[in-house]
């Protein structure tokens, strides 16, 4: 979800803005040392892909609509820091280019898609991998579950921002959050399908580019490179 201007209180906007800014700064430092020239095409492609899928808008009725996020995709392919920066860049372009997401709510939107869906998604993914068998199916199942959960979680937090921290007010919190979570639970299925398809394709064709390649199941063929 992308929160437009006017929907959250100044305090919510400021707080989420500060947190996002801090995360961006930290990610810039962390990513710079990790960035390799040959990853650039994948970074650009993931960014463009996220821009495209976030434009897919699924209405569920008055006031309730859901978008795909792509945060988990960024996390699994690019890792937490580069993934977060890509997500932040996408949100920035959507806001300044399309008006999708407000100017004053930029921090909040980056927090939702970046902190929760991408960074949070990354650590969720790592946790799931510990439980999953170290096979292709295990890897992709963890990807699918992470994709679904990040969409639902982000929608819950976003709804909380608009109710507890915003215009709708705490009184509307439970029904609104409930409806949004259910809607995104459905959309999360599409997110899981798309994310798993893309990750599966890269896993097969170019595992050397994935930031999470060390977590990939070892195949019979020659080991993947550094």
């Amino acid at each position, binding site marked *: 979800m992308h929160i437009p201007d006017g929907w959250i209180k100044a305090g919510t906007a400021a707080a989420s803005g500060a947190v996002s800014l801090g995360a961006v700064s930290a990610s810039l430092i962390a990513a710079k040392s990790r960035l390799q020239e040959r990853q650039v095409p994948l970074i650009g492609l993931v960014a463009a892909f996220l821009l495209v899928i976030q434009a897919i808008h699924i209405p569920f009725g008055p006031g309730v609509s859901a978008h795909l996020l792509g945060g988990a995709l960024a996390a699994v392919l690019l890792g937490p820091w580069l993934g977060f920066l890509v997500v932040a860049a996408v949100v920035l372009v959507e806001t300044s280019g399309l008006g999708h997401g407000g100017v004053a709510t930029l921090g909040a939107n980056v927090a939702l898609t970046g902190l929760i869906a991408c960074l949070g998604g990354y650590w969720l993914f790592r946790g799931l991998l510990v439980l999953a068998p170290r096979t292709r199916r295990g890897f992709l199942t963890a990807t699918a579950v992470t994709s679904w959960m990040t969409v639902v979680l982000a929608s819950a937090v976003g709804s909380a921002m608009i109710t507890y921290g915003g215009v709708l007010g705490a009184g509307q919190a439970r029904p609104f959050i409930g409806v949004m979570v259910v809607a995104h639970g459905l959309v999360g299925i599409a997110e899981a399908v798309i994310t798993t398809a893309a990750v599966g394709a890269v896993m097969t064709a170019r595992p*050397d580019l994935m930031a999470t390649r060390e977590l990939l199941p070892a195949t019979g*063929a*020659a*080991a*993947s*490179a550094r």
Partner: protein
Amino acid sequence: MTEGLAIVCDDLHFAYPDGHPALDGLSLEVEHGERVAVLGPNGAGKSTLTLHLNGILEPQRGRVEISGLPVTRAHIREVRRRVGVVFQDPDDMLFMPTVGQDVAFGPANFGCGEAEVAQRVLRALDMVGMSSYADRPPHHLSFGQRKRVAIAAVLSMGPEILVLDEPSSNLDPRSRREFGEILAKLEQTMLLVTHDLPYALGLCDRAVVIDRGRIVADGPIRDVLADDALLAAHALELPAGFTVTSFDA
């Protein structure tokens, strides 16, 4: 005397991340002004070699020198100015809104000022006969025209060495000939990676054959193409009805 050589490849070894060895002890020397055809079956390592010449790929063993300058991180900028690579698909090379901007991309990256860039663009487009197309978007052009613009986009950097990957592929007969005429007029040292043996014969004096990552033949092009056993051993074929006789029979 290596300062006099345009290209020096010394015992190159390179394997891709999936472990596939692409270059397996390849050594090559090219003098200034030579035109060398680089022949070989698919997967032999021709494209891999191309990418080593401007430092896109770094060999795991061995070294590359361009006009005496070692191809290392420190010199990469100058190397890429000296070596112009024309890739097989012009659509991979033309990504700006207009033809003029595509041709300007190279010199602009090397820090040329606006006026100098404009001059270079004009000259480069003139050399390939595309001067009147500077403000058109590339996707409005025919394939042959895009190939010409792709060459101009490299010529505008003022390279000493040109590496062309399958220059004649997918061109209709007339465009193929016109393109060959353009190439024939150029004075740069040239490496032509191609499957089009008659085309190579028309442009180059020397041919090297690469197979399984190393040079297996190197000599005057007529001799190489006249050697039927050699061609057969490396999956090379002249078009039906075409024979080449060496003058030293």
